[in-house]
């Protein structure tokens, strides 16, 4: 039962990533692209977690945690660059 649920979850996360990619390529405003990358990072975290359940291994959580941290930091850095013209003042 978990196998079928995992297949659905992996397919949903992959489809969500493709939709994010469409928004990333299309996005009319600059911040649309930043939002698309931010959402892609969250979808990749979900994909890593579901892959970890499928492989029955807890070794992927560090990768997910690193993705979460770097996604947040890069979004905030880009927004600060737009807002202030500098990342670290």
């Amino acid at each position, binding site marked *: *039962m*978990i196998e*079928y*649920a*995992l297949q*659905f*979850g*992996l*397919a*949903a*996360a992959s*489809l*969500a*990533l493709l*939709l*994010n990619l*469409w*928004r990333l390529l299309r996005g009319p*405003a*600059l*911040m*649309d692209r*930043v*939002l*698309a990358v*931010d*959402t892609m990072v*969250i*979808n990749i*975290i*979900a994909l890593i*977690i*579901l892959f*970890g*359940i499928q492989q*029955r291994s*807890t070794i992927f*959580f*560090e990768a*997910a*945690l690193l993705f*979460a*941290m770097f996604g*947040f930091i890069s*979004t*905030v850095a*880009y*927004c*600060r660059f*737009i*807002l202030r013209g500098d990342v670290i003042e």
Partner: protein
Amino acid sequence: MTFVLELLVSLLIVGGGAFLLIGSIGMVKLPDLLTRLHAPTKATTLGVGGALVASMVFFAGLEGTLSIHEVLITAFLFMTAPISAHFIAKAHLHEHTELRDGLPPTGRPVGWSTFDAAPAAGEADGEDDRRGAHD
């Protein structure tokens, strides 16, 4: 007991995947950025939270290896999603200054924070209904 846990994990995975998909569909379908911002920050965060809780129940209940990493990732994501959404909205308003024309009056002597300078100390307490210092 194992069946109940497997059912719970499967439901959490399916629900999380559905919310991830709904968030990304919303980001493609909604009309402009300030409405588009709602879909990923709420639905996608809930979806990844569902996947993380499923992983926690799976490893604690079925595999017997209790891991605390999922709680860390969930807490981190739920803390940082509103902050990054706020930053994106603020940078968008900073880039598109024509959006200020659609704003309602603040009801205070100072204007909206992204468009107008911060009030001097004590200036914000007046009863005047102006939008900002410059108009």
